[in-house]
């Protein structure tokens, strides 16, 4: 005769989702910020993006021979928002790899009664938070030092805010897609997120408009939410002064396309992750470390 048991305290699934997300966010932030003392972390958070934008600015002025105006605005805004992609998208994938390979906690997290997707989103957004400082510093530097046409009067919150939220959702979806691939990957796993990030950097109109790309690559870039996100962010920040990748599209169309693409990518990433997770469990490689 077996002893039987019932759960005394049960949580609603939404509460559980939120709790998982919040704890994962907390963990991600601890990992991101806890490696040194707070002062050093603060200095690092300022110096790092500043260093990055200075290098790019010098490159820009050498290539563009001192050009300013819309081209520089395009360049600076792309550079300002790109850290979200690096941190949130690559960060999610790298976080999974670190759980599996470095901290060796993946099996315990995965076998806990949580939504692993909510956990991943929490980890991803913790990383994205650290990109906020980089964004602010780059924009301030662009405005006050490089003189890009960014004014309060050019900012359009009704474009900027929804674009920002949709973009973050798209980035998380893309992170989930890369993470799906990582569940199968072993030896080359660490390189995958960086390789994808580098390809997107060239494709999505980060430092030059997609109109300069060959026709085929232009079509490809139009299917990626990041392209539309950066376009919408520029319109929301620089207004009339923005150099556009899609000058023929209205703001509403840009936002609508972004929303549609984000929805498609979220559904696709969710499906891909479900398949990858199932396959990884079937192959027995879900928690297997590099070298399998």
């Amino acid at each position, binding site marked *: 005769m077996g002893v039987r048991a019932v759960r005394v305290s049960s949580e609603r699934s939404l509460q559980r989702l939120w709790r998982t997300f919040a704890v994962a966010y907390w*963990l991600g932030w601890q990992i991101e910020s806890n490696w040194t003392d707070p002062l050093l972390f603060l200095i690092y958070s300022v110096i790092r993006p500043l260093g990055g934008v200075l290098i790019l600015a010098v490159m820009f002025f050498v290539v563009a021979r001192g050009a300013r105006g819309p081209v520089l605005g395009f360049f600076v805004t792309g550079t300002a928002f790109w850290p979200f992609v690096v941190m949130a998208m690559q960060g999610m994938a790298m976080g999974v790899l670190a759980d599996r390979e470095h901290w060796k906690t993946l099996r315990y997290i995965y076998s806990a*009664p949580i939504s692993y997707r909510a956990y991943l989103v929490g980890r991803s957004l913790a990383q994205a938070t650290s990109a906020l400082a980089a964004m602010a510093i780059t924009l301030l530097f662009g405005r006050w030092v490089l003189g890009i046409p960014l004014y309060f009067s050019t900012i359009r919150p009704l474009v900027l805010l929804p674009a920002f939220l949709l973009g973050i959702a798209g980035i998380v979806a893309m992170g989930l897609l890369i993470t799906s691939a990582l569940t199968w990957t072993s030896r080359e796993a660490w390189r995958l997120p960086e390789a994808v990030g580098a390809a997107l950097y060239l494709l999505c109109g980060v430092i030059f408009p997609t109109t300069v790309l060959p026709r085929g690559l232009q079509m490809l870039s139009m299917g990626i939410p990041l392209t539309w996100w950066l376009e919408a962010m520029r319109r929301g920040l620089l207004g009339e002064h923005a150099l556009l990748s899609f000058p023929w599209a209205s703001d509403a169309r840009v936002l609508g396309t972004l929303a549609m693409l984000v929805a498609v990518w979220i559904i696709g990433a969710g499906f891909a992750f479900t398949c990858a997770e199932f396959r990884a469990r079937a192959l027995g490689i879900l928690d297997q470390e590099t070298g399998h």
Partner: protein
Amino acid sequence: MWDESPEGMGELAVETKNLVRIYRRKRSSQDSQERQVIALDGVNVEIPYGELFGLLGPNGAGKTTLIKILVTLLLPTSGTARVAGLDVVQQAYQVRELISMVSGGEHSGYGLLTVREQLWMFSQFYGLPTRLALARIDELLKIVGLYEERNRRVSDLSTGMRQKMNLVRGLLSDPLVFFLDEPTVGLDVSAARDIRAYIKEWIREKPGRTILLTTHYMQEAEELCDRVAIIHKGRIIACDSPAALRRSAASGSYFLLTTERLSEDGWLKEVPGVRRVDIRVLDGRTEIRLQVAEDGVIAEVVRALADRERKIYSLTKVEPSLEDVFMQLVGRRMEEADEGR
């Protein structure tokens, strides 16, 4: 948190039926050919609630594979596995609410967090309110002797301390079924003893809870387990209580006699009740291993030796161990049967 109740889960804490797990592995990264490795080959296990069940076997026998399936990390190739009546494939999420796992021989844990932070984090994954979680963390840390280290970073802990912390992590959610995969492997004697002591205490204090423990330490299995299954090459080749397994050893108990060197030993087999005699000469003395029909027979052997004016240096009765049982079943010692040897 669990209450005993007449209603609820299945009759068995763990049940597997014809469980098979086959891995397909490439021979090398350049080679496209795959080879099949049968990790589990038709495993049937039934573990009632309240039992501390041991899975004993050499490295590569399939112990970890079985645990991975039961904790929903791995899918079986065929067969079924249930935990508390729930199918580990179809009802994985529900299974996870009831279980917990701790593996030995690894340095898991977020090194940047303190012990308390790390444990709090995992408690949240199981839905424990923070106040209750912190109280339980402190209580468990005191029990395993890690309370003083609660604010140390995980990266600063020794292997033994880290394993104790992971044991606490596993127990935080008060699991109905607790899976321990080689929990003392790689630990020093003292840390291993502490962990074994706490495992025993936990299951004694929590009737109805079940532990499935894998080990390749015979002594650990004998000391802790109510029942032990011996697994070899993915098959359960024996399953019973440690005492019953020892009794089942065909050799049974035997006597070990050390005497003055015997010039002739054929007469030993003629003593009534002596079943088997093995003799070897060591340092000018004779060591006699005797299997007898019943213990009283040894008196006749001693008398016969006295009649022949042979001195007896020692006489010991030796009970068979699980090592003997394993050797009888597999034909090799456990360490010889480890994968790759």
